[in-house]
């Protein structure tokens, strides 16, 4: 059975993409890089859901609908997240998250 006909291929890929996003979210200093990493994680989850919808007979069709709804929620998340980053940037003049320390001092 080829790799294109196995659910595990796509699930492993989705896990790898989610892990890349996790690393970026934990390791990057720039707030927009962190938002991009969150988008990568959402896309990994979306890939897993579409793969389930394509391979598991009970979820036939549902996977694609849920993926579309997740895309709309991701768009809302990106809008609000970037607006927050821009609002913080206007106050602090830096996009680096480790310099947002006003509540720690």
């Amino acid at each position: 059975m080829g790799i294109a006909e196995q659910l595990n291929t796509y699930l492993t890929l989705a896990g790898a993409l989610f892990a890349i996003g996790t690393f970026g979210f934990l390791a990057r200093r720039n707030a927009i890089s962190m938002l991009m990493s969150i988008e990568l994680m959402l896309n990994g989850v979306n890939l897993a859901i579409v793969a389930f919808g394509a391979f598991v007979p009970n979820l036939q069709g549902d996977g694609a609908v849920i993926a579309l709804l997740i895309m709309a929620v991701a768009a809302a998340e990106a809008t609000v997240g970037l607006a927050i980053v821009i609002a913080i940037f206007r106050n602090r003049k830096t996009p680096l998250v480790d310099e947002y320390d006003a509540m720690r001092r």
Partner: protein
Amino acid sequence: MRAWLYLIAAAVAGGIVTTPALLVLILLKGTFTDALVASLATLMLASGIAVVTMRDIIRCGLAMIVCFLALAGLYVTLGAAMVAAAQVIVYIGAISVLILFAIMLTSDKIGSSRLVFQTQAAPAAIAAIVVAVLVALAAAGTNWGAAGEAVRTATGDLAKLLFGNYVLAFEAVSVLLLAAVIGGVFLAKREKDVP
């Protein structure tokens, strides 16, 4: 000189993307779809790693577009053509452009290119690798009751589901998008009265 560098980089990238496809075709005797999936997966993972590791954040944003495009190709091989189209329209057309605009609005010339990683980058890498291995093990060790091949989702059936069973979620998402638009405008709006 620079043009040669770009040519060499393009050749290396093309090699990285086509090598897995050739390996699958020759070593595993896979079909054309297998080769396509291997190639798209490599492109997706390579550009995803580029997103989180490159120094220039504009290039990170452009690599993210490549990653989303490869992912749309994977959706097509999974038989979800509508999701692939929405991926191109929503992610590449809207979210990536929004992120590129935000990058250009917030980039500072000195600080951003010097140090891109936090001090916890090494533990973060370990945690990410652990997550990937755990997900792969869980996926391999579970019987999902999966069919032998990907079933194509017809767009008409998708529409019937979306406006039938899922119509409440659809309406809720539309309200959420409206709230997000208003919230985004409110948050990013410049306040005039602040001295």
